[in-house]
């Protein structure tokens, strides 16, 4: 098993003929992901790398039975693309797009729950279940099938940590990048819950950063609801107040949003917190013993 994406994922790519969408579609196809449809308005009827392209998600779903979508459309059109996916019944929607306006996200972010769907992102690297399905912009080569779940607010930091795991021979069940924006579709807690319910996942790595208090809430959740061990890592101890550190959501704007406060909350809940990426892999190895 795995979470969110697996052998049954039938993927639809929104913006398949765009530069980013096209590039990553080729990569996802190369990872043996079932990319069953692409959507680019006005290019319906064409093919892209053998994948049929449709004008609308409505048509694509009707023709191909897609159940998951990944969004590469430009930021001004991202919320519309999310609504289009959700309204057409897709179960898992992943928005890779960076720079989506926060008010657009507030309008759409509470919508998936009403449709029993899951929205991942925006501004995220996506989801990858090694050997099963790759709905992401993550480098499949550094992954290895296994029993550690990874959930992260960050991209390259995730790769760094996955790489450390793989180099130690520790494989992953699924890695999920939930995104670095202030408003994201799915937070740590929902992903932790899915990993807890996944019999194949024996340990979870949670990679947080400054901004908000999602890590604190996740720590409380773990303490009261989870048995699967979690190893955490928080980035941004040296971040100054009021300066956005790359991600729109990574900004220290109050006591709770510092790496310090998050780290303390994790430890208080009994979660092992590593001080650097290499230590993450060490702690995971211990937890799996």
């Amino acid at each position, binding site marked *: 098993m795995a979470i969110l994406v697996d052998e049954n994922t039938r993927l639809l790519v929104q913006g398949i003929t765009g530069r980013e969408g096209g590039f990553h579609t080729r990569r996802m196809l190369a990872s043996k992901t079932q990319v069953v449809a692409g959507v680019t308005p006005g290019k319906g009827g064409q093919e892209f790398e053998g994948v049929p392209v449709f004008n609308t998600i409505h048509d694509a779903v009707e023709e191909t039975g897609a159940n998951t979508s990944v969004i590469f459309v430009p930021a001004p059109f991202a919320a519309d693309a999310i609504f289009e996916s959700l309204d057409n019944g897709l179960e898992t929607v992943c928005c890779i797009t960076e720079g989506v306006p926060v008010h657009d996200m507030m309008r759409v972010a509470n919508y998936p729950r009403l449709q029993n769907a899951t929205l991942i992102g925006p501004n995220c690297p996506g989801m990858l279940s090694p050997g099963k399905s790759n709905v992401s912009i*993550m480098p499949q080569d550094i992954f290895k099938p296994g029993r550690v779940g990874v959930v992260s607010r*960050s991209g*390259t*930091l995730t790769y760094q940590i996955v790489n450390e795991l793989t180099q130690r021979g520790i494989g992953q069940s699924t890695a999920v990048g939930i995104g*670095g924006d202030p408003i994201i579709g799915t937070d740590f807690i929902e992903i932790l819950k899915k990993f807890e319910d996944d019999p194949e996942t024996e340990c979870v790595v949670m990679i947080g950063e400054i901004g908000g208090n999602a890590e604190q*809430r996740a720590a409380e959740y773990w303490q009261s609801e989870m048995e699967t061990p979690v190893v955490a890592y928080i980035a941004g101890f*040296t971040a100054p107040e009021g300066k956005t550190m790359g991600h729109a959501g990574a900004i220290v704007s*109050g006591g709770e949003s510092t790496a310090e406060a998050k780290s303390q909350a994790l430890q208080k809940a009994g979660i092992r917190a590593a001080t*650097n990426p290499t230590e993450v892999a060490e702690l995971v190895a211990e937890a799996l013993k």
Partner: protein
Amino acid sequence: MDLYEHQGKELLRGFGIETLPGVVAATPEEAKRAADTFGGTVAIKAQVLTGGRGKAGGIKVVKSPDEAEDAARQVLGMDIRGHTVRKLLVEAGAAIASEMYLSITVDREAKKPLILFSTEGGVDIEEVAATKPESIVRMHLDPLVGLLPYQTRQITFAAGLEGDAAKGVGRTLTNLYKGFEGLDASLVEINPLVLTEEGQVLALDAKVTVDNSSLYRHQDIAELRDVEAADPQEERAQEVGLQYVKLDGDVGILGNGAGLVMSTLDVVAQAGGDPANFCDVGGGADAEKISTALDIVTSNEKVKSVFFNIFGGITRGDEVARGLLSAIERTNIELPIVVRLDGTNAEEGRSILAENTPPNVKTEETMLGAAQRAVELAREGGR
């Protein structure tokens, strides 16, 4: 994007928020003239993109144009938390009966706008939250539904307001929410929101932060950006699409991806070093972008060594190595540069670097080892 008080007020007035008459002054003479126009008591307020200006002496209440000129002379040029005062807001006086607090923010957890209101205004709201939490009324809104009349009433009743105050705060809140939406703001805060002795409700201050991702649809606001006040290197970085934040240390840092760079800063600090900046060059191996980033990072005089931390993901390590070499060639950096290259095709990348690099470029295999090396090199003195 944070706005100055006078900019925020100007924009909010467009949504019906009432303020006192005010004029922006850049010189003591302008301040005097403005004070003369308003007559009576005026406030001279430093325009800086930081809080705490009151405590720092950035606000003076004066009784005559001459006093205004004097006060302006004192405040202009003042340094408030690292921000130089270059403009003032000269504002007419008012007879204040009470001070309140009103804000609308983006609540990450609920994924909804959050209204905070308190009749305990004029001070730090976090202090009020800590000492008198019951005095703060909180309410989430559904952005698809908007602010409903009952919600406005629920807030004013919960705060114990009546009559003019309830009506005025209700109207202000309704308009503030329009502003929050219309400006694509991530924060609109009025502290203090005052009730005057005549029963008017006025915004005496305004803190407006507009979502950067929304600026494409607010060209007018994007143009309000105070280029002069910004760090020139941060400005240059922004122009070429680099994420750069200047810090106080001596180890220059570059890397690909915000999370990895934040982590790099932390690891350098743990190794006893002091990061000079945050700089995310993003994905890919664009030699032009990397050389601009190197140039920006090393233009900081304090920097004594540079740590370039790359994780090859989709972009393979060998490509990154070539891009990096080409970038270093373009610049004339003599500072020691520690390059750590890991991930996809890392070995190939490292051997390319090992063969071709100038003597000031050192390669390391691990992030921790590289951090250690960069810190040591900075201690040894760089330039």
